[in-house]
């Protein structure tokens, strides 16, 4: 199931919300009776019923899209559960290390066989050895939940977190439906306490709902339509494509992937907030970056920090063979996105640029506008590498992008996608800048100066925006089927 599906919004959410509220009542009653018997004691598991509902709905949510691979996920959690327990109290010893390596190896093995096996056998076949193509369909979200499992094991080994002694609580952490299939990659330590003890007051819920609706709007109104445009320009024949089509197409894809993925993160964070979880932010206006290093501090933050903390720093960070560390991280980043050479090239491309940047651009004094242009240009080229997994098409695309085809001016269909969606382009480009937050803060600040009505005015504005977005999304989603999030396939 995906968030931007009418079935999710109008069937799954209402039923889940109702049951979750009901179980909140039950938990409170349990608390009440417990205190009545013994005023000093409190429940060991105050969230028990709510967690049961959340876990069951998470499994349902996943099984809706992957009725078979849901068992793979349950098995992965089980292996990690036992490794975590076996490591306890032996953290920094050889035994602890053994279980850490065993667990991480098991996770990576699952990832390798379900995500990369076809890729590997393809490489081997290229060397002339005949291997059958395993033809395994990629289980949705496997890259995300395997990484969460690894973060759990490492955090336990480093004694940053205690191992989870309840299988179902660990299952809840891995399978929690808001972030299950496309992140953010939530570290175990971030939410360990909240699994058993968390609270959400009316403000949290209001913020969460608002965040969810904003994310939905990003996805349905902007990303889906930009995706249509990108496909219409980049999806067909690229023979003698015009430079304008290449640039507009890749720009549309850049907007699509940002709003698609950050919209998903917003929705995940929003739902999490409603049930009392605080997931880390995943984006910080990446297209306003001033260098590639800066871009990766703003784009998919949870993945970047995962590699920083679990690969880059353990390898020696900037103290030992930094170049090797950087290249390893970027090779893995590329690889994480998919079992295809273009993703690896894409990762290495960023690795090289970031390394060169370190010794050049970041040391020089370059005017800011120059940095923006430099960054956006390299990001667009990067998305070109990312978009085409067929090298023939990729080279056709870059030939067009850099103007090696005959100049054709502005072809009709490019003009058509620009004019037909003019206001969407304008809105999307403005929303890439950090203006929404600024306007909201300004509004709230101004409103707070007016005693009495100010607060209501702000809330009313939020409600109005939410309802407009919701209506637009529902209208645009009627009859839509091709609506999956890009990042769920990584």
């Amino acid at each position, binding site marked *: 199931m995906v968030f931007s599906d009418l079935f999710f919004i109008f069937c799954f959410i209402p039923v889940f919300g109702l049951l979750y509220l009901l179980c909140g009542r039950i938990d409170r009653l349990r608390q009440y009776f417990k205190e009545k018997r013994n005023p000093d004691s409190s429940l060991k598991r105050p969230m028990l019923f709510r967690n049961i509902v959340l876990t069951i709905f998470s499994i349902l949510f996943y099984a809706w899209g992957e009725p078979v691979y849901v068992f793979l996920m349950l098995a992965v959690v089980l292996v990690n559960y036992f490794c975590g327990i076996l490591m306890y109290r032996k953290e920094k010893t050889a035994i602890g290390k053994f279980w850490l390596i065993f667990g991480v190896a098991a996770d990576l093995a699952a990832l390798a066989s379900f995500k990369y096996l076809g890729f590997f056998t393809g490489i081997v076949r290229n060397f002339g050895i005949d291997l059958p193509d395993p033809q395994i369909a990629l289980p949705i979200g496997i890259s995300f939940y395997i990484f969460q499992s690894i973060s759990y094991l490492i955090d336990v080994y480093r004694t940053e977190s205690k191992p989870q002694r309840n299988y179902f609580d660990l299952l809840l952490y891995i399978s929690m439906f808001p972030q299950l299939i496309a992140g953010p990659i939530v570290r175990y330590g971030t939410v360990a306490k909240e699994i058993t003890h968390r609270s959400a007051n009316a403000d949290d819920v*209001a913020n969460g709902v608002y965040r969810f609706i904003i994310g939905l709007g990003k996805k349905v109104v902007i990303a889906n339509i930009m995706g249509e445009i990108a496909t219409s320009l980049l999806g067909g024949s690229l023979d003698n494509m015009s430079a304008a089509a290449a640039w507009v197409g890749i720009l549309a894809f850049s907007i699509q992937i940002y709003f698609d993925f950050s919209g998903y993160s917003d929705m995940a964070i929003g739902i999490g907030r409603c049930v009392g979880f605080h997931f880390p932010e995943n984006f910080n206006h990446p297209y306003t970056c001033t260098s590639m290093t800066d871009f990766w501090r703003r784009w998919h933050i949870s993945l970047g920090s995962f590699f920083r903390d679990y690969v880059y720093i353990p390898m020696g960070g900037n103290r030992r063979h930094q170049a090797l560390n950087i290249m390893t991280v970027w090779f893995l980043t590329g690889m994480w996105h998919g079992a295809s050479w273009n993703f690896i090239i894409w990762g290495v491309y960023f690795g090289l640029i970031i390394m060169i940047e370190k010794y050049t651009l970041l040391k020089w004094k370059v005017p800011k506008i120059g940095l923006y242009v430099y960054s956006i240009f390299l990001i667009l080229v990067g998305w070109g590498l990312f978009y085409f997994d067929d090298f023939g098409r990729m080279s056709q695309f870059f030939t067009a992008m850099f103007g090696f085809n005959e100049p054709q001016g502005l072809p009709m269909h490019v003009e058509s996608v620009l004019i037909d969606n*003019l206001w*969407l382009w304008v809105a999307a480009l403005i929303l890439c800048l950090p203006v929404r937050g600024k306007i909201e803060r300004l509004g709230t600040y101004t409103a707070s100066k007016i005693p009495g009505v100010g607060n209501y005015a702000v809330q009313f504005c939020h409600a109005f925006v939410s309802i407009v977005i919701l209506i637009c999304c529902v209208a645009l989603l*009627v009859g839509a089927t091709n609506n999956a999030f890009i990042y769920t396939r990584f």
Partner: protein
Amino acid sequence: MYLVIVGIFFLLMTAVFVFLPRSTYSVLEKRDLAEFPDYRKYTDRPGEYTAAVSSWFSDTEPYRDELMTLSMNIRGAMKGDFITEEDAVSFRPADTAPTPKTEKSDASPAEMQSSDEESDVTADGESEEESPAESESDDEDLDDGVAKLGSSGTIIVGKGDKTRALMAFGGTPKGGGGYVDLLNTLADEFPGKNVYAMVAPLATEYYLPAKAAKASNPQKPFIYSVRDRLSPKVKFVDIYDELSKHKKEDIYLRTDHHWSGLGGYYAAKRLAQAAGVPFKGLDAYDKHTVKGFVGSMYGYTKDISVKKAPEDFVYYTPNQVTYDAEFVAYTLNKKFQITRESKPYKSSFFKHFKDGNGNAYLTFIGSDQVYVKVKTSTPGNRKLLIIKDSYGNAVPGNLFYSFNEVHVVDFRYFTHNLKKYINDNGITDIAVCFNVFNAYSSGSASKVKKMLTQTGGVQASAASQSKSDAGTTGKKKPAETNTVTTAPEEAASTPEKAEETTRQLKPDSIK
């Protein structure tokens, strides 16, 4: 307060979407909506079942057409409106129909386009909802020999009330072998009778601005390559040339994929010339108008500018000749297989629709699932048979001054032996009138060829249409039979009722 407002609103919407009766038919897209998937068909593919449930839910939303209209309005509002020239052009990617099931039955423009290959029977029209054995049989009666042309779609030209929606043609001069072969076979089979080839171009040929020329292949080379390959015994009716002379007139509907009554009139004129029979000017006709007509291209393009440019649907009925139409109607099941044939019944040849009715093109003949025999007061013994697709519907009504009898047979629905029919009725002239899509694809022609040898009767037709699945669907057929049309007598008795009925008819796509 925020939570209260949004919460109440959300609950209201939930109540609407979950508890109100679901939509079952889209007037806008002229198709039946998805049905709740049957889990028995998915036992080995559970993932597809859940996906089908999700798309069923979004396809059958209550107030679906209203929401769809809103959605088009939202898309329309995103347009930058500073271009004022009349030749504004915009492209819409062909919409993939929401569910696999409807995708194949409701040929959207892209699906109607022929590919460059000669043998272009839709192999990819297979329904994902059905087991392979069943869907094979579907190919047979739904393909009409049309193939998908992936990424291209529809083209919208002009602005405001001049907006015109066009379909792209993907064919090349090499196609159409099946059509040529059919005509040559007819000429050999019926020596002494006149055989006419009529290929109707799409509006795209006349109204696509030069700067958007790349969006569609030219149709002229294809049409004349058909002419050049016909045997000398076949008479080629040059509709292309005739329409070229009149392109300033309203020969095509702007919002529908068909031509107009006037376009059909000029085609008939050329046929009459070729046949050497009398033909009267428009002063011998009464002019009728259905106002506020918005045709099929609105649903295909999903572009609000088409809806905002309604047009007059104009048709002409001859007023100096008496004509008596006798219909035989077929009842189809949901798979468009013929399950029943009605007794012959009399009805009026033209059926007037109310203003604003988007099905007004059905004015001619009223439906595709019929064959009609029209006796006219025109003296002589010339008896014409038109084998036609939906473009052909607009032609016969203009030939009542020319022939003593006019018979109209749809190339998809005819259960009798065509050879016997021609001989029994003393037909003297045979015309095959297809638009370029059907003339291009070999499947449409091969259907007609089969009619020459089929033994006749409803059962035989059903069997011949699904011979590959006798074991699988044969048994299920009675259960799945779903009367799509109401009783024909009733359907055709009054225009109002006909209007009611056509809402339930199968989508009137180019076939």
